[in-house]
């Protein structure tokens, strides 16, 4: 997700890492870490604990905007590694453009011992971060998708989340909710295709096949995702607003939920503190009864540019921040970043009920879907495909430019073929 993972500043205390660890004084020097918004803040929060283990490594965290980090990485790689930091944050979906377009711009982390970490993270996170045996970035957070909902408004309309299994149930419940309270079930707009990506991912479909060799955006799973988007739009259960508009709508009680990655927890808590106790989560609806109720939206990783003078210290920092329970749980607790480090899921904090969410153990519920998430591959052409599908979505839903979802997705597939040179699968 390109949106800033808006800070959940509600619990801004320093990350506690008091576990007595053996000090390593062999590594020394300075490293620079570049990330954006809350991601940078979270990494800054890890520095103190890291320095207890590695007192001689001095870490500087640069906080640039999300798009700026990406543009700067591309420009740096195009310039042969000039002006790149030692640790570089990258979104999973966008990552492959770096390994494919600029082979040699980033260090193969297996030379620094990353091979041992493979089993510690779920498979879907590795898809875009590795090329054959090589590993170019270590998984960080992820965005397991759930439905967020207002308990009080659902109750007022007589809806129970337990009865919502499929998207059809969801839409029917949404119409009841709209009649009773005037509130909507979820939101999206036409500057991004995020909700469509969730639906497609849930159906095991995406822009490209898992090998990244053919365009699959007009396959049945993706077409069905587009049909569901149309139903959500036509039935009036969706609020069409942008990010900030959604926050306003939440505060005004005209938006009773969202279907997003776990990172939206922080946004809800920090924007509507007065609604404490009124929120809850339940799994995303399935396409059909008994279908998959899991998907992923967003998530990032950390990589080391080959131009780094101190890759060992950079790897030590990454390992400390991402491949340790205290690092990942600290970032979850303080910044709402959802860990993808599997051992962190057994941490007691994850099992706890959260007061804001009516004492529901939301992290356990959100992370429980991690293992069921189908793989999806952004490939090096993610940006192009996303731009095209976003435009197709708006054309199909609001302009009536196509007779059917199939026609819309066939056209999108042709456009993506023009932009990427990849063949459309099955043609």
């Amino acid at each position: 997700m390109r949106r800033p993972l808006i800070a959940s500043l509600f619990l801004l205390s320093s990350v506690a890492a008091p576990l007595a660890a053996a000090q390593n004084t062999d590594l020394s020097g300075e490293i620079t870490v570049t990330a954006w918004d809350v991601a940078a803040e979270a990494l800054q929060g890890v520095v103190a604990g890291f320095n207890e283990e590695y007192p001689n490594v001095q870490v500087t965290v640069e906080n640039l905007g999300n798009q700026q980090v990406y543009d700067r990485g591309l420009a740096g790689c195009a310039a042969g590694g000039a002006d790149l930091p030692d640790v570089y944050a990258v979104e999973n979906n966008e990552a492959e453009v770096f390994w494919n377009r600029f082979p040699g711009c980033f260090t193969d982390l297996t030379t620094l011992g990353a091979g041992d970490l493979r089993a510690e993270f779920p498979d879907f996170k590795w898809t875009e971060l590795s090329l054959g045996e090589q590993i170019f970035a270590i998984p960080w957070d992820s965005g397991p998708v759930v439905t967020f909902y207002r308990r009080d408004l659902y109750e007022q309309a007589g809806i129970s989340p337990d009865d919502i299994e499929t998207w059809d149930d969801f839409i029917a419940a949404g119409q009841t909710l709209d009649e009773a309270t005037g509130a909507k079930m979820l939101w999206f707009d036409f500057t991004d295709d995020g909700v469509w990506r969730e639906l497609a991912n849930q159906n095991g479909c995406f822009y490209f096949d898992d090998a990244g060799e053919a365009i699959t955006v007009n396959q049945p799973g993706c077409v069905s995702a587009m049909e569901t988007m149309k139903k959500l739009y036509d039935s009036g259960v969706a609020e069409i607003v942008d990010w900030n508009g959604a926050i306003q709508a939440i505060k005004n009680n005209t938006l009773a939920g969202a279907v997003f990655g776990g990172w939206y927890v922080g946004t809800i808590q920090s924007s509507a503190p007065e609604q404490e106790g009124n929120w809850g989560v339940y799994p995303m609806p399935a396409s059909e009864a008994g279908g998959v109720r899991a998907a992923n939206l967003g998530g990032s990783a950390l990589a080391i540019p080959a131009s780094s003078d101190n890759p060992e210290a950079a790897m030590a920092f990454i390992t400390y921040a991402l491949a340790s329970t205290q690092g990942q749980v600290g970032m979850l607790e303080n910044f709402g970043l959802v860990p993808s480090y599997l051992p962190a899921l057994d941490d007691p904090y994850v099992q706890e009920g959260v007061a804001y969410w009516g004492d529901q153990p939301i992290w356990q519920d959100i992370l429980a879907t991690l293992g069921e998430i189908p793989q999806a591959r952004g490939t090096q052409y993610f940006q192009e495909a996303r731009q095209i599908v976003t435009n197709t979505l708006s054309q199909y839903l609001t302009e009536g430019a196509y007779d059917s979802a199939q026609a819309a997705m066939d056209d999108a597939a042709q456009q993506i073929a023009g932009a990427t040179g990849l063949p459309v699968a099955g043609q």
Partner: protein
Amino acid sequence: MQRNRLIPYTFLVPYLAIFLIFWAWPILYSVYLSFLDTRGFPWALEPGVNWGRIWSDPFFRQALRNTLILLAVQVPVMLLLATGLAVGLNSPLLKLKGFYRFAFFAPVVVGSVAYSAVFRLLFNTQNGAVNAALAGLGLPRVDWLNTPVAAFVLIVLTVTWRWTGYNAIIILAGLQNIPLELYEAAKIDGANPWQQFWGITLPLLRPILLFALVLSVIGTLQLFTEPFLITGGGPGNATLTLGVYLYQQGFRSFNFGYASAIGYAIALLAVLFSALQLRFFGQDPS
């Protein structure tokens, strides 16, 4: 003798070297690039791939449509304002001429990144000065950056703000070249100021207006900074211009071949428009 002839050229070498490497070579090389398939590695010669795509690409069509609408709306409005401004600045009644001329020219001197940032703040929906003024007048607030039509209007406003004064100064130079005797003669013949404007000022300004028109059309065809920094080409693709689309293809997607083709499409359009303008406005009607 021989040496004396060479010396001037040695002084020109630094400029010529920079011109050849950073101007002439890229201009020629991008012709070649536009015939390459640069969507992956290695690049391959495939003449039809970019020029074929440009015809069927809905994003290019949208960018072209936006650019043409901008051209049709913004350029005439700006030149009309600039002409009025120039006549005002040329008035013998005006005091502090130097100050006013500088004041209207100043927007061109301001860095475009700086003023784009300021415009983003001024037109901010919640806290912007413009919406505060609208609300003060009892008018509804406008969501400038997030609704398609308003965002487009915003781009028209900013470009007009920036370039009207510049064109006014060019036109002013033209006004000052008109001999005063013509006005005196007209006055003796009993022509009122309005008749003087239509009969003398406008016809004699024609070459300079044509110059300003051609420059503005070329500038608008290449428009990039304002839509890129203020609206990002959005919302949706409402303010996507050819310049912004070229940037996206070239420096986000690294598809240099297609970006080169877009660049040459812009250049061809500029040639076409300039030829049309010279054809229709360039001839002496007499």
